[in-house]
Protein backbone atom coordinates (compact mmCIF):
# COMPACT_ATOMS: atom_id res chain seq x y z
CA UNK A 1 0.00 0.00 0.00
CA UNK A 2 2.57 2.55 1.11
CA UNK A 3 4.72 1.53 -1.83
CA UNK A 4 2.55 3.70 -4.00
CA UNK A 5 2.78 7.45 -3.97
CA UNK A 6 -0.23 8.01 -6.22
CA UNK A 7 -3.16 5.76 -6.89
CA UNK A 8 -5.93 6.48 -9.33
CA UNK A 9 -8.91 4.31 -8.54
CA UNK A 10 -11.73 3.85 -11.06
CA UNK A 11 -11.21 7.31 -12.50
CA UNK A 12 -13.61 8.41 -15.21
CA UNK A 13 -13.80 11.80 -16.82
CA UNK A 14 -16.68 12.91 -19.00
CA UNK A 15 -16.48 16.46 -20.32
CA UNK A 16 -19.49 18.77 -20.51
CA UNK A 17 -19.91 18.13 -24.20
CA UNK A 18 -20.22 14.41 -23.48
CA UNK A 19 -16.71 13.46 -24.58
CA UNK A 20 -15.43 10.55 -22.54
CA UNK A 21 -11.78 11.32 -21.87
CA UNK A 22 -11.15 8.55 -19.34
CA UNK A 23 -13.07 5.38 -18.74
CA UNK A 24 -12.50 3.59 -15.44
CA UNK A 25 -8.77 4.19 -15.20
CA UNK A 26 -6.82 2.34 -12.52
CA UNK A 27 -3.21 3.24 -12.01
CA UNK A 28 -0.77 2.88 -9.14
CA UNK A 29 2.46 4.82 -9.27
CA UNK A 30 5.46 3.80 -7.19
CA UNK A 31 7.73 6.22 -5.39
CA UNK A 32 10.75 7.31 -7.47
CA UNK A 33 9.32 5.77 -10.59
CA UNK A 34 9.62 7.27 -14.06
CA UNK A 35 6.18 6.56 -15.43
CA UNK A 36 5.11 7.53 -18.92
CA UNK A 37 1.56 7.98 -20.14
CA UNK A 38 1.70 7.19 -23.84
CA UNK A 39 -0.96 7.29 -26.49
CA UNK A 40 -2.25 9.08 -29.56
CA UNK A 41 -3.80 12.54 -29.19
CA UNK A 42 -7.17 12.46 -27.48
CA UNK A 43 -6.37 9.24 -25.62
CA UNK A 44 -6.76 10.86 -22.19
CA UNK A 45 -3.10 11.09 -21.21
CA UNK A 46 -3.08 14.84 -20.61
CA UNK A 47 -6.42 14.62 -18.81
CA UNK A 48 -4.92 12.04 -16.45
CA UNK A 49 -2.03 14.39 -15.71
CA UNK A 50 -4.37 17.32 -15.15
CA UNK A 51 -6.45 15.24 -12.75
CA UNK A 52 -3.32 14.46 -10.73
CA UNK A 53 -2.32 18.15 -10.83
CA UNK A 54 -5.79 19.20 -9.70
CA UNK A 55 -6.74 21.16 -12.82
CA UNK A 56 -9.54 18.78 -13.75
CA UNK A 57 -11.98 17.06 -11.43
CA UNK A 58 -12.69 13.42 -12.20
CA UNK A 59 -16.34 12.65 -12.89
CA UNK A 60 -15.95 9.46 -10.89
CA UNK A 61 -13.29 7.67 -8.89
CA UNK A 62 -10.72 8.72 -6.33
CA UNK A 63 -7.20 10.12 -6.39
CA UNK A 64 -5.04 8.89 -3.53
CA UNK A 65 -1.78 10.65 -2.71
CA UNK A 66 0.45 9.05 -0.07
CA UNK A 67 -2.53 7.13 1.27
CA UNK A 68 -4.88 10.11 1.41
CA UNK A 69 -7.78 10.91 -0.85
CA UNK A 70 -7.10 14.30 -2.46
CA UNK A 71 -10.06 14.69 -4.84
CA UNK A 72 -11.11 17.98 -3.23
CA UNK A 73 -7.64 19.40 -2.67
CA UNK A 74 -7.10 22.46 -4.93
CA UNK A 75 -3.99 22.52 -7.15
CA UNK A 76 -2.07 25.04 -5.02
CA UNK A 77 -2.21 22.71 -2.03
CA UNK A 78 -0.98 19.58 -3.81
CA UNK A 79 2.61 18.45 -3.39
CA UNK A 80 3.12 18.03 -7.10
CA UNK A 81 4.56 20.44 -9.65
CA UNK A 82 3.99 20.59 -13.36
CA UNK A 83 6.10 21.33 -16.40
CA UNK A 84 3.56 22.62 -18.90
CA UNK A 85 3.50 21.82 -22.58
CA UNK A 86 4.36 25.31 -23.81
CA UNK A 87 6.34 26.06 -20.63
CA UNK A 88 3.84 28.73 -19.41
CA UNK A 89 6.67 30.91 -18.13
CA UNK A 90 5.86 34.26 -16.56
CA UNK A 91 6.95 36.67 -19.26
CA UNK A 92 6.90 39.68 -16.92
CA UNK A 93 9.57 38.12 -14.69
CA UNK A 94 13.21 37.34 -15.38
CA UNK A 95 14.71 33.85 -15.09
CA UNK A 96 15.56 34.18 -11.41
CA UNK A 97 12.09 35.40 -10.46
CA UNK A 98 10.43 32.70 -12.52
CA UNK A 99 12.34 29.99 -10.72
CA UNK A 100 11.93 31.68 -7.34
CA UNK A 101 8.17 32.14 -7.73
CA UNK A 102 7.10 29.05 -5.77
CA UNK A 103 9.66 29.66 -3.01
CA UNK A 104 8.51 33.27 -2.59
CA UNK A 105 4.90 32.14 -2.34
CA UNK A 106 5.86 29.66 0.38
CA UNK A 107 7.71 32.48 2.20
CA UNK A 108 11.10 30.79 2.10
CA UNK A 109 13.87 32.97 3.63
CA UNK A 110 15.66 35.13 1.06
CA UNK A 111 19.11 33.56 1.44
CA UNK A 112 17.68 30.11 1.01
CA UNK A 113 15.77 31.21 -2.11
CA UNK A 114 18.99 32.56 -3.62
CA UNK A 115 20.86 29.38 -2.80
CA UNK A 116 18.21 27.01 -4.07
CA UNK A 117 17.59 28.93 -7.29
CA UNK A 118 21.33 29.00 -7.99
CA UNK A 119 21.59 25.29 -7.32
CA UNK A 120 18.65 24.57 -9.60
CA UNK A 121 19.99 26.75 -12.43
CA UNK A 122 23.24 24.81 -12.17
CA UNK A 123 21.33 21.56 -12.43
CA UNK A 124 19.65 22.66 -15.66
CA UNK A 125 22.82 24.27 -17.02
CA UNK A 126 21.61 27.85 -16.93
CA UNK A 127 24.27 29.40 -14.70
CA UNK A 128 24.48 33.15 -15.23
CA UNK A 129 21.04 33.46 -16.81
CA UNK A 130 19.41 34.89 -13.65
CA UNK A 131 18.78 38.38 -15.01
CA UNK A 132 17.71 37.37 -18.51
CA UNK A 133 14.15 37.94 -19.68
CA UNK A 134 12.50 34.63 -20.51
CA UNK A 135 11.35 35.83 -23.92
CA UNK A 136 14.97 36.33 -24.96
CA UNK A 137 15.77 32.64 -24.38
CA UNK A 138 15.69 29.84 -26.94
CA UNK A 139 13.05 27.11 -26.76
CA UNK A 140 15.45 24.70 -25.09
CA UNK A 141 16.50 27.27 -22.51
CA UNK A 142 12.88 28.18 -21.74
CA UNK A 143 12.25 24.48 -21.27
CA UNK A 144 15.05 24.31 -18.71
CA UNK A 145 13.65 27.32 -16.85
CA UNK A 146 10.26 25.59 -16.71
CA UNK A 147 11.87 22.44 -15.28
CA UNK A 148 13.90 24.42 -12.75
CA UNK A 149 10.83 26.43 -11.73
CA UNK A 150 8.99 23.20 -10.91
CA UNK A 151 11.86 21.23 -9.34
CA UNK A 152 13.08 24.03 -7.05
CA UNK A 153 10.02 23.42 -4.87
CA UNK A 154 11.20 19.85 -4.22
CA UNK A 155 7.90 18.25 -5.14
CA UNK A 156 7.16 14.61 -4.35
CA UNK A 157 6.00 14.17 -7.89
CA UNK A 158 6.85 16.06 -11.05
CA UNK A 159 4.25 16.08 -13.81
CA UNK A 160 5.56 16.69 -17.33
CA UNK A 161 3.11 17.36 -20.16
CA UNK A 162 4.88 16.69 -23.46
CA UNK A 163 7.75 18.88 -22.28
CA UNK A 164 9.98 18.23 -25.28
CA UNK A 165 7.29 18.52 -27.95
CA UNK A 166 8.42 21.93 -29.19
CA UNK A 167 12.14 21.14 -29.44
CA UNK A 168 14.04 19.94 -32.48
CA UNK A 169 15.17 16.33 -32.71
CA UNK A 170 18.76 16.77 -31.56
CA UNK A 171 17.84 18.87 -28.56
CA UNK A 172 15.02 16.48 -27.71
CA UNK A 173 17.45 13.58 -27.55
CA UNK A 174 19.82 15.54 -25.31
CA UNK A 175 17.02 16.63 -22.99
CA UNK A 176 15.70 13.07 -22.73
CA UNK A 177 19.03 11.95 -21.34
CA UNK A 178 19.27 14.97 -19.03
CA UNK A 179 15.76 14.52 -17.69
CA UNK A 180 16.38 10.87 -16.97
CA UNK A 181 19.61 11.75 -15.15
CA UNK A 182 17.87 14.45 -13.11
CA UNK A 183 15.15 12.04 -12.11
CA UNK A 184 17.65 9.46 -10.94
CA UNK A 185 19.74 12.03 -9.10
CA UNK A 186 16.85 13.74 -7.31
CA UNK A 187 14.85 10.61 -6.66
CA UNK A 188 11.56 12.26 -7.54
CA UNK A 189 8.64 10.45 -9.10
CA UNK A 190 8.21 11.63 -12.69
CA UNK A 191 4.92 11.27 -14.51
CA UNK A 192 5.59 12.00 -18.13
CA UNK A 193 3.07 12.49 -20.92
CA UNK A 194 4.11 11.97 -24.52
CA UNK A 195 2.85 10.67 -27.83
CA UNK A 196 6.39 9.80 -28.91
CA UNK A 197 6.85 6.06 -28.40
CA UNK A 198 10.62 6.20 -28.80
CA UNK A 199 10.85 8.82 -26.04
CA UNK A 200 8.69 6.64 -23.80
CA UNK A 201 10.74 3.51 -24.44
CA UNK A 202 14.08 5.18 -23.79
CA UNK A 203 13.24 7.06 -20.57
CA UNK A 204 10.61 5.19 -18.60
CA UNK A 205 10.60 2.63 -15.82
CA UNK A 206 7.06 1.81 -16.80
CA UNK A 207 4.74 2.83 -19.57
CA UNK A 208 0.98 3.17 -19.53
CA UNK A 209 -0.51 2.88 -22.98
CA UNK A 210 -3.84 4.66 -23.32
CA UNK A 211 -6.30 4.66 -26.17
CA UNK A 212 -9.70 6.37 -26.16
CA UNK A 213 -9.58 6.77 -22.40
CA UNK A 214 -8.91 3.10 -21.72
CA UNK A 215 -5.66 1.60 -20.43
CA UNK A 216 -4.31 -0.85 -22.99
CA UNK A 217 -1.24 -2.05 -21.14
CA UNK A 218 0.92 -1.10 -18.17
CA UNK A 219 4.38 -2.62 -18.24
CA UNK A 220 8.11 -2.03 -18.53
CA UNK A 221 9.37 -0.68 -21.87
CA UNK A 222 10.97 -4.02 -22.75
CA UNK A 223 7.80 -5.98 -22.09
CA UNK A 224 5.66 -3.44 -23.91
CA UNK A 225 7.87 -3.76 -26.96
CA UNK A 226 8.38 -7.49 -26.89
CA UNK A 227 5.07 -8.64 -25.48
CA UNK A 228 2.43 -6.16 -26.59
CA UNK A 229 -0.89 -7.16 -25.10
CA UNK A 230 -3.01 -6.40 -28.14
CA UNK A 231 -2.78 -5.27 -31.72
CA UNK A 232 -3.25 -1.60 -30.78
CA UNK A 233 -0.18 -1.63 -28.53
CA UNK A 234 1.83 -3.56 -31.09
CA UNK A 235 0.90 -1.11 -33.78
CA UNK A 236 1.46 1.97 -31.64
CA UNK A 237 4.83 0.87 -30.26
CA UNK A 238 7.07 0.61 -33.27
CA UNK A 239 5.86 -0.70 -36.57
CA UNK A 240 4.25 -4.07 -36.89
CA UNK A 241 2.78 -6.48 -39.35
CA UNK A 242 -0.65 -7.37 -37.99
CA UNK A 243 -2.21 -10.33 -39.78
CA UNK A 244 -5.50 -12.19 -39.27
CA UNK A 245 -4.84 -15.74 -38.18
CA UNK A 246 -6.47 -18.83 -36.71
CA UNK A 247 -5.05 -20.80 -33.79
CA UNK A 248 -5.06 -24.46 -34.87
CA UNK A 249 -3.74 -25.85 -31.58
CA UNK A 250 -1.17 -24.86 -28.95
CA UNK A 251 2.00 -23.63 -30.64
CA UNK A 252 0.57 -23.80 -34.16
CA UNK A 253 -1.11 -20.91 -35.96
CA UNK A 254 -2.51 -20.62 -39.48
CA UNK A 255 -2.04 -17.37 -41.38
CA UNK A 256 -1.16 -16.28 -44.88
CA UNK A 257 -2.07 -19.73 -46.20
CA UNK A 258 0.54 -21.50 -44.05
CA UNK A 259 0.55 -23.43 -40.77
CA UNK A 260 3.31 -21.81 -38.77
CA UNK A 261 4.88 -22.97 -35.50
CA UNK A 262 4.82 -20.47 -32.66
CA UNK A 263 5.28 -20.53 -28.88
CA UNK A 264 1.88 -19.28 -27.69
CA UNK A 265 -0.51 -21.52 -25.84
CA UNK A 266 -3.88 -21.29 -24.15
CA UNK A 267 -6.10 -20.30 -27.05
CA UNK A 268 -9.28 -22.11 -28.02
CA UNK A 269 -9.12 -24.41 -31.03
CA UNK A 270 -9.72 -22.44 -34.23
CA UNK A 271 -9.87 -19.15 -32.32
CA UNK A 272 -9.47 -16.11 -34.55
CA UNK A 273 -6.39 -14.15 -33.48
CA UNK A 274 -4.16 -11.26 -34.49
CA UNK A 275 -0.69 -12.33 -35.45
CA UNK A 276 1.86 -9.59 -34.80
CA UNK A 277 5.34 -9.71 -36.32
CA UNK A 278 7.92 -6.91 -35.92
CA UNK A 279 9.45 -5.83 -39.23
CA UNK A 280 12.99 -6.47 -37.97
CA UNK A 281 12.08 -10.05 -37.00
CA UNK A 282 11.40 -11.17 -40.56
CA UNK A 283 14.44 -12.90 -42.01
CA UNK A 284 15.23 -12.86 -45.70
CA UNK A 285 15.85 -16.38 -46.94
CA UNK A 286 16.51 -18.33 -50.12
CA UNK A 287 13.27 -18.98 -51.96
CA UNK A 288 13.49 -22.72 -51.23
CA UNK A 289 13.94 -22.32 -47.44
CA UNK A 290 11.34 -19.60 -47.00
CA UNK A 291 7.94 -19.75 -45.33
CA UNK A 292 6.56 -17.16 -47.77
CA UNK A 293 7.74 -15.56 -50.95
CA UNK A 294 6.83 -12.18 -52.33
CA UNK A 295 7.78 -9.40 -54.67
CA UNK A 296 9.62 -6.32 -53.40
CA UNK A 297 7.48 -3.25 -54.08
CA UNK A 298 9.53 -0.53 -52.43
CA UNK A 299 12.86 0.01 -50.72
CA UNK A 300 13.51 3.08 -48.56
CA UNK A 301 16.89 3.85 -47.03
CA UNK A 302 16.53 4.76 -43.32
CA UNK A 303 20.12 5.18 -42.25
CA UNK A 304 20.86 2.03 -40.25
CA UNK A 305 18.44 -0.16 -42.18
CA UNK A 306 16.14 -0.30 -45.18
CA UNK A 307 12.35 -0.28 -44.96
CA UNK A 308 11.29 -2.91 -47.47
CA UNK A 309 7.71 -3.62 -48.47
CA UNK A 310 6.96 -6.99 -49.97
CA UNK A 311 3.69 -8.15 -51.49
CA UNK A 312 3.14 -11.88 -51.13
CA UNK A 313 1.10 -13.92 -53.60
CA UNK A 314 -2.01 -13.85 -51.35
CA UNK A 315 -2.01 -10.05 -51.56
CA UNK A 316 -0.71 -9.29 -48.04
CA UNK A 317 1.76 -6.41 -47.86
CA UNK A 318 4.63 -7.06 -45.46
CA UNK A 319 6.92 -4.48 -43.90
CA UNK A 320 10.50 -5.66 -43.38
CA UNK A 321 13.43 -3.89 -41.82
CA UNK A 322 16.78 -5.23 -42.88
CA UNK A 323 20.32 -3.95 -43.12
CA UNK A 324 20.81 -5.73 -46.47
CA UNK A 325 19.63 -3.87 -49.50
CA UNK A 326 16.98 -5.51 -51.70
CA UNK A 327 15.86 -4.39 -55.15
CA UNK A 328 12.41 -3.43 -56.33
CA UNK A 329 10.78 -6.08 -58.51
CA UNK A 330 12.86 -8.96 -57.09
CA UNK A 331 11.14 -11.95 -55.56
CA UNK A 332 12.48 -12.80 -52.11
CA UNK A 333 11.81 -15.43 -49.45
CA UNK A 334 10.79 -14.62 -45.87
CA UNK A 335 10.80 -16.58 -42.61
CA UNK A 336 10.01 -15.85 -39.00
CA UNK A 337 11.33 -17.68 -35.94
CA UNK A 338 8.61 -19.16 -33.72
CA UNK A 339 9.48 -16.91 -30.76
CA UNK A 340 9.17 -13.78 -32.92
CA UNK A 341 5.54 -14.53 -33.64
CA UNK A 342 3.19 -12.83 -31.19
CA UNK A 343 -0.34 -14.10 -30.98
CA UNK A 344 -2.97 -11.75 -29.59
CA UNK A 345 -6.61 -12.08 -28.79
CA UNK A 346 -8.78 -10.15 -31.21
CA UNK A 347 -10.08 -6.92 -29.75
CA UNK A 348 -13.82 -7.24 -30.13
CA UNK A 349 -15.24 -4.05 -31.56
CA UNK A 350 -18.50 -3.09 -29.92
Amino acid at each position, binding site marked *: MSDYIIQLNNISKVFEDGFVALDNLNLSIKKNEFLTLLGPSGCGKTTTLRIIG*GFEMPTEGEIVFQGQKINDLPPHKRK*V*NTVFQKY*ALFTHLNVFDNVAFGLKISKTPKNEIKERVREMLNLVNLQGFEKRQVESLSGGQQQRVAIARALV*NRPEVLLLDEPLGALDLKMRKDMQIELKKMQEKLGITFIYVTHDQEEALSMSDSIVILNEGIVQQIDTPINIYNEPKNAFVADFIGESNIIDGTMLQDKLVHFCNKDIPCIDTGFAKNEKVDVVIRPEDIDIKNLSDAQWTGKVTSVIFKGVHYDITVESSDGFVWLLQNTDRQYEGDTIGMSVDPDDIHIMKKVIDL
Partner: protein
Amino acid sequence: MSKSLKKAYLWLIILFLYAPILVLMVLSFNDSRSRATWGGFTFRWYIELFKDRDILLALYYTLAIGLLSSVIATIIGTFAAIGIFGYKKLSYSLVKNISYIPVINADIVTGVSLMLMFVFLGINQGFFTLLLAHITFNIPYIIFSVLPKLHQMDIHVYEAALDLGANPFMSIIKVVIPEIRPGIITGFLLAFTLSIDDFVISFFTSGPGVTNLSIEIYSMARRGINPKINALSTLMFVVVMALLLIVNKRSASNTEKKVRRDI
Protein backbone atom coordinates in the same frame (compact mmCIF):
# COMPACT_ATOMS: atom_id res chain seq x y z
CA MET B 1 -4.86 63.54 -63.62
CA SER B 2 -6.94 61.04 -61.65
CA LYS B 3 -4.11 60.76 -59.15
CA SER B 4 -4.12 64.47 -58.37
CA LEU B 5 -7.93 64.35 -58.18
CA LYS B 6 -7.68 61.62 -55.57
CA LYS B 7 -5.20 63.68 -53.63
CA ALA B 8 -7.35 66.78 -53.82
CA TYR B 9 -10.30 64.79 -52.54
CA LEU B 10 -8.31 63.54 -49.59
CA TRP B 11 -7.18 67.06 -48.72
CA LEU B 12 -10.75 68.28 -49.06
CA ILE B 13 -11.89 65.75 -46.49
CA ILE B 14 -9.05 66.60 -44.12
CA LEU B 15 -9.83 70.29 -44.53
CA PHE B 16 -13.51 69.60 -43.88
CA LEU B 17 -12.69 67.66 -40.71
CA TYR B 18 -10.02 69.89 -39.27
CA ALA B 19 -10.82 73.42 -40.52
CA PRO B 20 -13.06 74.23 -37.52
CA ILE B 21 -10.39 73.16 -35.06
CA LEU B 22 -7.75 75.03 -37.00
CA VAL B 23 -9.85 78.19 -36.87
CA LEU B 24 -10.30 77.67 -33.14
CA MET B 25 -6.58 77.24 -32.60
CA VAL B 26 -5.68 80.29 -34.68
CA LEU B 27 -8.26 82.45 -32.90
CA SER B 28 -6.94 81.37 -29.50
CA PHE B 29 -3.78 83.30 -30.35
CA ASN B 30 -5.64 86.30 -31.78
CA ASP B 31 -5.01 89.54 -29.92
CA SER B 32 -8.48 90.90 -30.63
CA ARG B 33 -11.86 90.18 -29.10
CA SER B 34 -13.43 90.06 -32.53
CA ARG B 35 -13.50 86.79 -34.37
CA ALA B 36 -13.47 88.58 -37.70
CA THR B 37 -10.20 90.49 -37.49
CA TRP B 38 -6.65 89.41 -36.74
CA GLY B 39 -5.18 91.64 -34.04
CA GLY B 40 -1.76 90.05 -33.87
CA PHE B 41 -0.30 87.08 -32.06
CA THR B 42 -0.74 86.77 -28.28
CA PHE B 43 -0.70 84.35 -25.36
CA ARG B 44 -3.04 86.72 -23.51
CA TRP B 45 -6.03 84.35 -23.49
CA TYR B 46 -3.95 81.51 -22.16
CA ILE B 47 -2.62 83.69 -19.36
CA GLU B 48 -6.08 84.95 -18.51
CA LEU B 49 -7.33 81.43 -18.60
CA PHE B 50 -5.04 80.46 -15.78
CA LYS B 51 -6.12 83.47 -13.74
CA ASP B 52 -9.79 82.58 -13.95
CA ARG B 53 -10.81 80.91 -10.67
CA ASP B 54 -13.93 79.30 -12.17
CA ILE B 55 -11.93 77.71 -14.93
CA LEU B 56 -9.22 76.50 -12.56
CA LEU B 57 -11.87 74.98 -10.33
CA ALA B 58 -13.44 73.27 -13.34
CA LEU B 59 -10.00 72.03 -14.36
CA TYR B 60 -9.53 70.63 -10.87
CA TYR B 61 -12.88 68.82 -11.01
CA THR B 62 -12.16 67.52 -14.48
CA LEU B 63 -8.83 66.06 -13.48
CA ALA B 64 -10.09 64.75 -10.14
CA ILE B 65 -13.13 63.10 -11.71
CA GLY B 66 -11.02 61.88 -14.62
CA LEU B 67 -8.37 60.26 -12.45
CA LEU B 68 -10.65 58.88 -9.76
CA SER B 69 -13.24 57.51 -12.16
CA SER B 70 -10.70 55.90 -14.46
CA VAL B 71 -8.75 54.33 -11.58
CA ILE B 72 -11.91 52.94 -9.97
CA ALA B 73 -13.35 51.84 -13.33
CA THR B 74 -10.03 50.19 -14.20
CA ILE B 75 -10.09 48.12 -11.01
CA ILE B 76 -13.76 47.15 -11.37
CA GLY B 77 -13.50 46.59 -15.12
CA THR B 78 -10.35 44.46 -14.94
CA PHE B 79 -11.82 42.06 -12.40
CA ALA B 80 -15.08 42.05 -14.35
CA ALA B 81 -13.20 41.09 -17.52
CA ILE B 82 -11.36 38.29 -15.70
CA GLY B 83 -14.72 37.06 -14.40
CA ILE B 84 -16.36 37.23 -17.83
CA PHE B 85 -13.35 35.44 -19.34
CA GLY B 86 -13.89 32.59 -16.88
CA TYR B 87 -17.51 32.03 -17.96
CA LYS B 88 -18.54 29.16 -20.16
CA LYS B 89 -19.60 29.84 -23.75
CA LEU B 90 -23.23 30.91 -23.38
CA SER B 91 -22.96 33.05 -20.26
CA TYR B 92 -19.71 34.44 -21.68
CA SER B 93 -21.33 35.97 -24.74
CA LEU B 94 -24.44 36.98 -22.78
CA VAL B 95 -22.56 38.89 -20.09
CA LYS B 96 -20.08 40.28 -22.60
CA ASN B 97 -22.85 41.74 -24.74
CA ILE B 98 -24.76 43.11 -21.77
CA SER B 99 -21.64 45.00 -20.72
CA TYR B 100 -21.30 46.32 -24.25
CA ILE B 101 -24.75 47.94 -24.41
CA PRO B 102 -23.79 51.08 -22.42
CA VAL B 103 -21.14 51.81 -25.05
CA ILE B 104 -23.59 52.01 -27.93
CA ASN B 105 -26.27 53.70 -25.86
CA ALA B 106 -26.74 57.41 -26.67
CA ASP B 107 -24.98 59.63 -24.14
CA ILE B 108 -28.12 61.65 -23.62
CA VAL B 109 -30.05 58.51 -22.64
CA THR B 110 -27.31 57.41 -20.27
CA GLY B 111 -27.14 60.92 -18.78
CA VAL B 112 -30.87 61.37 -18.30
CA SER B 113 -31.35 57.88 -16.90
CA LEU B 114 -28.50 58.34 -14.42
CA MET B 115 -29.99 61.66 -13.35
CA LEU B 116 -33.41 60.07 -12.90
CA MET B 117 -31.92 57.29 -10.84
CA PHE B 118 -30.08 59.71 -8.55
CA VAL B 119 -33.30 61.70 -8.08
CA PHE B 120 -35.23 58.49 -7.47
CA LEU B 121 -32.73 57.35 -4.85
CA GLY B 122 -32.71 60.80 -3.27
CA ILE B 123 -28.99 61.35 -3.77
CA ASN B 124 -28.03 65.03 -3.95
CA GLN B 125 -26.28 65.69 -7.23
CA GLY B 126 -22.73 66.94 -7.03
CA PHE B 127 -19.19 65.60 -7.08
CA PHE B 128 -20.19 62.14 -5.92
CA THR B 129 -22.90 61.61 -8.53
CA LEU B 130 -20.64 62.96 -11.25
CA LEU B 131 -17.96 60.49 -10.17
CA LEU B 132 -20.44 57.60 -10.11
CA ALA B 133 -21.66 58.48 -13.59
CA HIS B 134 -18.12 58.58 -14.99
CA ILE B 135 -17.21 55.28 -13.38
CA THR B 136 -20.36 53.77 -14.87
CA PHE B 137 -19.70 54.79 -18.45
CA ASN B 138 -15.99 53.97 -18.21
CA ILE B 139 -16.28 50.36 -17.03
CA PRO B 140 -17.28 48.85 -20.42
CA TYR B 141 -14.26 50.46 -22.11
CA ILE B 142 -11.95 48.86 -19.58
CA ILE B 143 -13.60 45.47 -20.08
CA PHE B 144 -13.14 45.73 -23.82
CA SER B 145 -9.50 46.70 -23.56
CA VAL B 146 -8.71 43.88 -21.15
CA LEU B 147 -10.69 40.97 -22.65
CA PRO B 148 -8.55 40.66 -25.81
CA LYS B 149 -5.39 40.53 -23.70
CA LEU B 150 -6.88 37.72 -21.64
CA HIS B 151 -7.57 35.80 -24.82
CA GLN B 152 -3.97 36.31 -25.93
CA MET B 153 -2.62 35.11 -22.60
CA ASP B 154 -1.51 31.50 -22.29
CA ILE B 155 -4.13 30.09 -19.90
CA HIS B 156 -1.53 27.69 -18.52
CA VAL B 157 0.29 30.67 -17.02
CA TYR B 158 -2.52 30.98 -14.47
CA GLU B 159 -2.43 27.25 -13.84
CA ALA B 160 1.34 27.38 -13.44
CA ALA B 161 0.94 29.94 -10.64
CA LEU B 162 -1.59 27.70 -8.89
CA ASP B 163 0.74 24.77 -9.44
CA LEU B 164 3.56 26.63 -7.70
CA GLY B 165 1.42 27.14 -4.62
CA ALA B 166 -0.28 30.50 -5.17
CA ASN B 167 -3.98 30.54 -4.31
CA PRO B 168 -6.40 31.69 -7.05
CA PHE B 169 -6.46 35.33 -5.87
CA MET B 170 -2.66 35.53 -5.60
CA SER B 171 -2.32 33.93 -9.02
CA ILE B 172 -4.52 36.63 -10.53
CA ILE B 173 -2.65 39.45 -8.77
CA LYS B 174 0.88 38.12 -9.28
CA VAL B 175 0.60 36.54 -12.72
CA VAL B 176 -2.59 37.26 -14.66
CA ILE B 177 -2.65 41.04 -14.07
CA PRO B 178 1.02 41.56 -15.00
CA GLU B 179 0.43 39.46 -18.14
CA ILE B 180 -2.52 41.63 -19.24
CA ARG B 181 -1.07 44.91 -18.01
CA PRO B 182 -0.78 46.51 -21.48
CA GLY B 183 -4.55 46.08 -21.93
CA ILE B 184 -5.23 47.54 -18.50
CA ILE B 185 -3.10 50.62 -19.17
CA THR B 186 -4.70 51.16 -22.57
CA GLY B 187 -8.13 50.89 -20.95
CA PHE B 188 -7.14 53.33 -18.22
CA LEU B 189 -5.92 55.94 -20.73
CA LEU B 190 -9.05 55.52 -22.81
CA ALA B 191 -11.26 55.92 -19.74
CA PHE B 192 -9.34 59.01 -18.64
CA THR B 193 -9.70 60.54 -22.11
CA LEU B 194 -13.42 59.82 -22.26
CA SER B 195 -13.91 61.29 -18.80
CA ILE B 196 -12.10 64.55 -19.66
CA ASP B 197 -13.99 64.69 -22.91
CA ASP B 198 -17.49 64.06 -21.61
CA PHE B 199 -20.12 66.79 -21.66
CA VAL B 200 -23.58 65.26 -22.05
CA ILE B 201 -23.53 62.76 -19.20
CA SER B 202 -21.70 65.20 -16.91
CA PHE B 203 -24.25 67.90 -17.67
CA PHE B 204 -27.10 65.75 -16.35
CA THR B 205 -25.33 64.23 -13.37
CA SER B 206 -23.35 67.05 -11.78
CA GLY B 207 -24.88 69.47 -9.31
CA PRO B 208 -24.60 73.08 -8.16
CA GLY B 209 -21.05 74.27 -7.68
CA VAL B 210 -19.51 71.30 -9.44
CA THR B 211 -18.64 71.77 -13.08
CA ASN B 212 -16.04 70.19 -15.27
CA LEU B 213 -14.32 71.95 -18.15
CA SER B 214 -16.79 71.01 -20.84
CA ILE B 215 -19.72 72.26 -18.76
CA GLU B 216 -17.72 75.41 -17.97
CA ILE B 217 -17.09 76.07 -21.65
CA TYR B 218 -20.74 75.51 -22.40
CA SER B 219 -21.88 78.03 -19.79
CA MET B 220 -19.19 80.54 -20.82
CA ALA B 221 -20.37 80.30 -24.40
CA ARG B 222 -23.90 81.02 -23.28
CA ARG B 223 -22.80 84.13 -21.39
CA GLY B 224 -21.14 85.57 -24.45
CA ILE B 225 -18.18 85.20 -26.68
CA ASN B 226 -14.95 85.04 -24.76
CA PRO B 227 -11.67 84.23 -26.48
CA LYS B 228 -10.65 82.33 -23.36
CA ILE B 229 -13.00 79.63 -24.61
CA ASN B 230 -10.80 79.23 -27.68
CA ALA B 231 -7.69 78.89 -25.59
CA LEU B 232 -9.33 76.38 -23.24
CA SER B 233 -10.80 74.35 -26.09
CA THR B 234 -7.45 74.29 -27.85
CA LEU B 235 -5.78 72.94 -24.74
CA MET B 236 -8.44 70.29 -24.30
CA PHE B 237 -8.16 69.26 -27.92
CA VAL B 238 -4.40 68.89 -27.66
CA VAL B 239 -4.57 66.85 -24.44
CA VAL B 240 -7.33 64.54 -25.66
CA MET B 241 -5.62 64.13 -29.03
CA ALA B 242 -2.34 63.23 -27.38
CA LEU B 243 -4.00 60.67 -25.13
CA LEU B 244 -5.88 59.10 -28.03
CA LEU B 245 -2.67 58.88 -30.05
CA ILE B 246 -1.02 57.04 -27.18
CA VAL B 247 -4.01 54.68 -26.85
CA ASN B 248 -4.04 53.97 -30.58
CA LYS B 249 -0.34 53.38 -30.72
CA ARG B 250 -0.53 51.00 -27.79
CA SER B 251 -3.42 48.95 -29.13
CA ALA B 252 -1.82 48.79 -32.57
CA SER B 253 1.41 47.39 -31.18
CA ASN B 254 -0.56 44.98 -28.99
CA THR B 255 -2.46 43.48 -31.89
CA GLU B 256 0.65 43.25 -34.01
CA LYS B 257 2.44 41.14 -31.42
CA LYS B 258 -0.01 38.31 -31.06
CA VAL B 259 -2.93 36.76 -32.86
CA ARG B 260 -6.19 36.92 -30.98
CA ARG B 261 -8.05 33.82 -30.02
CA ASP B 262 -11.54 33.71 -31.46
CA ILE B 263 -14.61 32.90 -29.39
